[in-house]
């Protein structure tokens, strides 16, 4: 068959028409799902690939929460939450495909998912174009807020604002900054340096290691010759393990120079062996050692479900309570309508989480969390040496760096812009 220009155009037109109509057919077929006694919830975490290590634990925590909610009678007067699980294989492109599938084909009411910023940013356009809801549990660099996303992990002000003065006060003003070479560590260090300026500290050096780089003898040598009071680390993944190990092997202990970080959790300590993390400090909202009845139950149930060897961590705790946020919002609004959930159901939602009482901010879609500082001990758990007196308001545009920006979905300008169908669905405004 000879393909000439006209035939090509005809075929192409037909093909694109079919593709365009495709979502419509699906809509027809699944429109009735709302009236059944099941409510589909998407779970979008990598179960294979490089970041499956941490994402599987988020997946587990969310499934456990769904089970608990169903066992307690479900939502909206007896309807069951049904998880629709997809594995995006740690590949950013696949995240987007799977998100689209969950939204258009499965018609899930909301998706609990993503871990890295890259994956969140790749799926967000799908949620914005199709008016879906994403609940995102990771601590992240902030500086964004989308109408279609709720952020239940910590933003920098919740982990750093109290940590910096505490560290300066306790150990001294001279800080050596080491981080992985990508956006999160760089943004965190910007904030940390601003905090140091504010509280009379100084940066003696700021260095980055390429992702995957696990040889730190050079950095440790520089640390030894600069003799800072504190090492502030934003290394990630297997870098953490290698750095702590080599730090101790070169004979520097936590008493000499403590490593302070907003990243290292029980999970990494388990991977390196507790003797290497001993005495170093982490700032987080949640530690497995938090002393509350909710946490005792959470840890016990997680271990009973997934194995005695498992440890819990801050991100999975957020994954756990965000599932409850969703269930409560569904109960309260009595509908699965996305706009109703986004504007009425989820904002202001409170829950007695393992870390303490948490709440979604009424204005900026981020979450009020508690701040804690933990010191690693011999058994790989943390001694909580400091805890905030109250929950801490999330500030996605940190005042210190962005005094003239804020995020407010109750601002009339934002409401009007989103109602008008504008492509820009962020709640960021200039003040």
């Amino acid at each position, binding site marked *: 068959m000879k393909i000439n220009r006209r035939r090509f155009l005809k075929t192409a037109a037909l093909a694109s028409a079919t593709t365009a109509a495709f979502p419509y057919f699906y809509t027809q077929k699944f429109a009735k799902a709302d009236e059944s006694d099941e409510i589909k919830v998407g779970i979008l975490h990598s179960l294979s690939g490089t970041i499956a290590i941490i994402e599987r634990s988020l997946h587990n925590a969310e499934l456990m929460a769904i089970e608990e909610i169903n066992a307690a009678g479900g939502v909206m007067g007896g309807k069951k939450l049904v998880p629709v699980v997809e594995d995006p294989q740690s590949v950013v492109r696949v995240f987007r495909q799977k998100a689209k599938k969950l939204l258009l084909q499965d018609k899930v009411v909301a998706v609990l998912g993503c871990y890295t910023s890259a994956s969140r940013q790749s799926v967000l356009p799908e949620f914005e174009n199709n008016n879906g809801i994403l609940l995102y549990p990771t601590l992240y660099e902030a500086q964004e807020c989308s109408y279609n996303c709720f952020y239940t992990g910590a933003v920098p002000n919740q982990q750093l604002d109290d940590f910096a003065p505490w560290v300066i006060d306790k150990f001294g003003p001279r800080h050596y900054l080491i981080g992985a070479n990508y956006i999160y560590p760089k943004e965190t260090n910007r904030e940390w340096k601003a905090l140091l300026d504010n509280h009379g500290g100084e940066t003696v050096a700021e260095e980055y290691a390429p992702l995957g780089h696990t*040889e730190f003898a050079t950095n440790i040598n520089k640390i*030894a010759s600069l003799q800072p009071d504190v090492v502030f680390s934003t290394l990630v993944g297997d870098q953490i393990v290698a750095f702590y190990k080599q730090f101790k092997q070169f004979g520097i202990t936590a008493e000499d120079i403590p490593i302070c970080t907003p990243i290292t959790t029980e999970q990494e300590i388990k991977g390196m062996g507790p003797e290497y993390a001993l005495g170093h400090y982490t700032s987080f909202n949640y530690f497995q050692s938090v002393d509350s009845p909710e946490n005792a139950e959470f840890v016990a149930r997680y271990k009973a479900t997934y194995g005695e060897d498992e440890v819990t961590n801050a991100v999975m705790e957020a994954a756990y309570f965000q599932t409850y946020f969703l269930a409560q919002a569904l109960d309260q609004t009595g509908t699965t309508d996305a706009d109703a959930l986004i504007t009425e159901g989820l904002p202001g939602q409170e829950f007695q989480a393992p870390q303490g009482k948490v709440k979604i901010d009424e204005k900026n879609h981020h979450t009020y969390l508690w701040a804690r500082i933990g010191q690693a001990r011999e058994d790989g758990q943390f001694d909580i040496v400091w805890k905030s007196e109250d929950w801490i308001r999330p500030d996605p545009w940190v005042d210190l760096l962005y005094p003239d920006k804020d995020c407010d979905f109750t601002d009339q300008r934002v409401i009007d812009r989103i109602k008008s169908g504008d492509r820009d669905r962020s709640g960021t405004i200039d003040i």
Partner: protein
Amino acid sequence: MGDAVLTQFFSGFSLVAILIIAALGLAVIFGVAGVINMAHGEFIMVGAYVASVVQSGLGGNTFWSIPICFVAVGLLGLVVERTVIRGLYDRPLETLLATWGVSLILIVIIKMIFGTELHYVGSPEMLQGGFPAPGNLPFPWYRLFLILLSILLLVLTFVLFFRTKFGLAVRAVRRNRSMSEAMGINTARVDMLIFAYGSGLAGVAGAVLAPIKTVSPTMGFPYAVDSFMVLVMGGVGNLLGVPVGAAIIGEGETILAFLFNSVIGKLLVFLLIVLVIRIVPRGIFGYQERTLGHRR
């Protein structure tokens, strides 16, 4: 400042040792059998997991896991050679793909057995801590152990190649395969044993690197990259290329990282490698050889 430079120089040695240990197995296999083993990094990874089993299951330390890993990963290499590589010796591109496939399979198998979380391997009691060295940091015993081990492995490999009958056969096969066959050397057996030996060395690398780095299913890739870099720099076909390539890359990287930072250090070393490939494509110790009957 002078102290820091001294310390830097010493820690550079330990990186050189790590590179030698990681690259030696690859060099042996590539140099003799002519197979580019893309699964080399994963062989190291399997070695690290065997070491973690030796530690947690049998209670043995690194000194135990070195011979056990050598044998275990050597056997794994033997099996891979017999089943996958054997039929592909004359097709370099296919061996590349096949060994890459092997690497993916190994990652998945390890994940199925051990899960995806990081595993913990400690260093032996007697090698913990360090001794006072010139410079501003004590030098870890464990790194001294790595340096000595890398020298030992190099010497053992040289002895095997230049002082044994098997080594003579290996060198003959390397130079002229069909002639060696005509002389009665069982070249298939030489290939197989060399592949097993090279794999065993990768296993040893995994055993000794586990205590200073991370043990996870995806840990192998960076080592494979570093090892290839050492070979490209030093040249294949001559065992001397390994220590020389490792020395240039290792010391270069640590010194540059000290002068600038790790990111720029890595960048400059990559640049240097590109330059070397441009000027001496066969690497510093590579040479044009008579390849009559050599499998290509």
